[in-house]
């Protein structure tokens, strides 16, 4: 991707602004009131943190900051929460059953997400999905540990299915 210095400067500014607003909102939520002193100290803290994290701002270049990204984000959250609840019910069933049904295995899968932020979110989602744990993330390949390799099916395609569900929604708001 070739960007002119002016475009880079603009991107850097919008990422900085995004981080600033994010931290300021977090501050307000944690302080829980809108007194002048809180707001002012929040602005100061957000400025300091944004300036201090200047070298890491390119992390946000993976984010699509547009109104069109809101809907995929919400549908991703819904899919994620459903997966988290299914993961827990699945784990509860395994832990409570006397025979302890397990058949672990490790498999590697490629992601088509390009940005490190997107890959981070994908890796975290995989960890909280039924039966899978992200062990390593190197470049575009993710190493995944299975509690129970689905019987009868090909492990590669089973893993592909797990990542596809998240990728489909993630591509809407990260690169």
């Amino acid at each position, binding site marked *: 991707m070739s960007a002119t210095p002016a475009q880079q400067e603009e991107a850097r500014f919008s990422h900085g602004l995004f981080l600033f607003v994010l931290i300021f909102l977090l501050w307000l939520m944690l302080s829980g009131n809108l007194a002048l002193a809180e707001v002012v100290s929040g602005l100061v803290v957000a400025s300091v943190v944004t300036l201090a994290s200047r070298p890491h701002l390119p992390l946000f270049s993976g984010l699509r900051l547009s109104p069109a990204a809101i809907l995929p984000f919400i549908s991703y959250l819904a899919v994620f929460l459903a997966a988290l609840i299914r993961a827990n019910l699945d784990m509860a069933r395994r832990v409570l059953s006397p025979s302890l049904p397990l058949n672990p295995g*490790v498999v590697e899968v490629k992601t088509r997400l390009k940005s490190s932020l997107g890959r981070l979110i994908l890796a975290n989602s995989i960890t909280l999905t039924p039966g899978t744990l992200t062990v390593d993330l190197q470049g575009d390949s993710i190493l995944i540990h299975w509690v129970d390799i689905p019987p009868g099916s090909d492990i590669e395609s089973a893993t592909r299915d797990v990542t596809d569900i998240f990728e489909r929604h993630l591509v809407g708001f990260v690169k």
Partner: protein
Amino acid sequence: MRLLADIILLIGATFTLLGALGLLRMPDVYNRIQAGTKAVTLGALSLLLGIGLLYPEWWSKLLVIALMILVTNPIGSSTIARALMMAGVKPWKKVETITSERDQA
């Protein structure tokens, strides 16, 4: 509202208990991480939701805590798993590993 909050708190406590049970019952460290992470994440989230129902004025702080847990829990688990993999800890396999361990003992 009080009853609903209690039920959700109870569900959270139950999942956390199941996570602890999973830590005890699972055969190897990777499976323990799996059981621990999932159960504790959902358990903590439903505990926070239950507290939010009891004390609605705390919702913003609880939301920040929930986001923090959602982001950091899986990262921590993956980091531990990655370190173990790099240290050469092999994942447990059904039957084969058990017999070889008995042979060694």
